[in-house]
């Protein structure tokens, strides 16, 4: 098993908890990056231990801070609830029960000017996260690699087209996972690469036949 030196000697983060604060910040930030624009309105639902202890751990401030674009080492996370108002972001924090979910689970429904995203994320310890549901699709992304999220139609050749575009631009695919709602329906494909994919290639990817949208999330 391989570990990153700065996961042991780190991460550098606002306290008090790597799982309930640092991880929560990262899920919020991932949501902001997937939305790709400022968050105007957000509904945050905490489950399990997150629901029980979010006030004492500042998990609410953490998620809102992430939605404002702050990473774990940004001290502004502490004041994120006030800063959200200043930036014109409306938010609502609620709790719910869902015994099937991991104890440190949050669902974020975020709206931007002309887009919205529904993301469910899990904080698995030490600041590490997993994104497990996006817009109703079961996904699996840990944001440990540079990640592309491709929204497309389930049609023959679409995946080949994407792979061809990436290889044509010199990128190696490290991991690839598909999730579709039904045959011939909608698909979300998660592609992880060893180096960040440049904007030109992302644009080319979004031109592939049957691709509806591409989001690039650099490793963070």
């Amino acid at each position, binding site marked *: *098993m*391989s*570990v*990153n*030196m*700065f*996961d*042991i*000697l*780190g*991460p*550098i*983060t*606002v*306290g*008090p*908890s*790597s*799982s309930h*604060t*640092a991880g929560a910040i990262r899920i919020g930030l991932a949501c902001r990056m997937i939305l790709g624009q400022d968050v105007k309105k957000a509904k945050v639902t905490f489950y399990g*231990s997150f629901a*029980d*202890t979010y*006030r*004492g*751990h*500042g998990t609410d*401030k953490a998620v809102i801070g992430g939605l404002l674009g702050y990473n774990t*080492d940004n*001290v502004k*996370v*502490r004041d994120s609830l006030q800063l959200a108002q200043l930036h014109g972001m409306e938010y609502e924090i609620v709790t719910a029960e869902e015994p099937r979910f991991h104890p440190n689970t949050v669902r974020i429904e975020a709206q931007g000017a002309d887009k919205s995203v529904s993301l469910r994320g899990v904080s698995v*310890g*030490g*600041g590490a996260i997993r994104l497990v549901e996006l817009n109703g699709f079961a996904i699996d992304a840990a944001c440990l690699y540079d990640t592309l999220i491709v929204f497309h139609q389930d049609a023959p050749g679409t995946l080949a087209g994407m792979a061809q575009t990436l290889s044509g631009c010199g990128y190696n695919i490290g991991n690839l996972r598909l999730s579709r709602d039904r045959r011939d329906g909608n698909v979300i494909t998660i592609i992880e690469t060893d180096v960040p994919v440049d904007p030109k290639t992302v644009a080319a990817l979004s031109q592939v036949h049957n691709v509806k949208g591409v989001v690039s999330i650099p490793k963070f």
Partner: protein
Amino acid sequence: MNIPSIDYLLDEAAKDNQPIWQIVLREEQADSGLSIDELRERVKKTYDVMREAANGGISSEIRSVSGLTGGDAARYYRHLKNRKNLLGSLSARAMAYALGTSEYNAAMGVIVAAPTAGASGVLPGVLLAAQEEYGFTDREAVNALITATGIGAVIATRATISGAQGGCQAEVGSGSAMAAAALCDVMGGSARQTTHAAAIALKNALGLACDPVAGLVEVPCIKRNGMYACMAIAAADLALAGVESFIPPDEVIDAMYQIGCNLPACIRETAEGGLAITPTGLKAKRRLFF
């Protein structure tokens, strides 16, 4: 980096008679693609954050986000400044800095989660105190931190550093092992002594429950950081004297994991056992959340 065992670290170190931190840097460089200088620079930045957090915690009486704790680091630091401390100077400073870091963490200050946020006071507590006492350079402190990271990496690889998985022994015990190794290394201990310092420190935490009041990283976590900083110093001192752990370091780590697997869930961070469900612990929880 991929460091499967303490024995691997020692074997590699013995090959060219290198210190442990050299091996750790080499492994991380191969994995991350970063240069040695870039890695050192990042570790130095980490050390700066540790220093800021420790000082932030002792300089004023801060309160935690929940309001449950705070002010003890400043209280103990005053005690030390007034020369009323019973602990020796090194341990007393380590106690103050470890408490300070942990209180700063509970107040949502920026800390280094090494190995976790809950156990973030031990390593900086010991290293910052030792640097003040013995005056080694920041470069030497960085080497010690890299050594500590090597020990932490082996624990994370062979066992766990998560309280939810292994109880507090996995968090503050690992922090204490890392701190003992850092101190032994920077005070001139051999690679073998450094790993035995870690083993002695970790043995001393075996079986430790993770039973935080109201599920928050405050009671008993903050004081435990201070106490295990002192234990780390004791472990390093023993190792420097030539005392060895009867059970080899890798076997101690494996034992910690095995004990962690056998701990009931109620004392693995769920706040459903131990101190968390004492009458006072439950009262504090009710006051906070209802």
